[in-house]
């Protein structure tokens, strides 16, 4: 499937000319995506601190 996807990109010469720009944009967007996800789940970690700590304690007991 990845092969077909890459072939589809490879046969589009116009798209290949813009690949550098697309790559840079995608890379920067990943930083935002991961950063946003990490920050949001960090907030959840604080909101559910007690439940998580209890879960971790149960794990230690087992």
């Amino acid at each position, binding site marked *: *499937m*990845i*092969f*077909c*996807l*890459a*072939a*589809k*990109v*490879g*046969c*589009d*010469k116009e*798209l*290949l000319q*813009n*690949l550098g720009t*697309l*790559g840079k*944009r*995608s*890379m*920067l*967007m*990943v*930083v*935002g*995506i*991961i*950063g*946003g*996800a*990490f*920050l*949001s*789940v*960090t*907030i*959840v*970690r604080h*909101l*559910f601190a007690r*439940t*998580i700590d*209890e*879960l*971790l304690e*149960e*794990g230690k007991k087992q």
Partner: protein
Amino acid sequence: MIYLIISALLTGSLFGYFCLEVAHKEILDVILINALNIIVFTGGVEIGSNKEIIKKMLTPKTLSLMAAVPTANFLGSILGGTIVGTILSVPIKDSLLVSAGMGWYSFSSVVISAMYSTEVGTMSFIANVMREMLSFLLVPLAAKFTDLPCVSIGGASSMDSTLPVILKYTNTQIAIVGFINGLIITLIVPFLITALLGI
């Protein structure tokens, strides 16, 4: 796995560049959609076969946590991606589509490429492959400072490829949350991308 992905990517690009024309895109779309159907079916079988994990998900004590983690993961990913996309002058719909892939590059890039735009599909592919690749590096690093947020880095891949890394660097409880996070994301991504494509 990573080497296989890189090999498929390189050989596919070279094959497309030297052997195919833009007119062949339609044939590739048919192959891609059929391959995708098989992948989604296999994913469904995998999810259904994990009965023990599903039982653990139904425990009242952890149910709200299990719902909160993927919700926060979705909101954070989409918000973060859209903010950066807007700064880079990427149209909002395109930013939303790229962010909504949640690391599931084999699905999101194929659907976006076949049903919307090859350009945005390529962006989605690069962004979501990078998310999975970076998670192998970032989870061990993040695990030195925290536990639960480690499951957010890989997005949907926290139920498969990133799961062993989460398990190794955190603990079993966090890995279970990671699995369920990935499971819920995997279930929602197809609906979310389809909905976004309809806008």
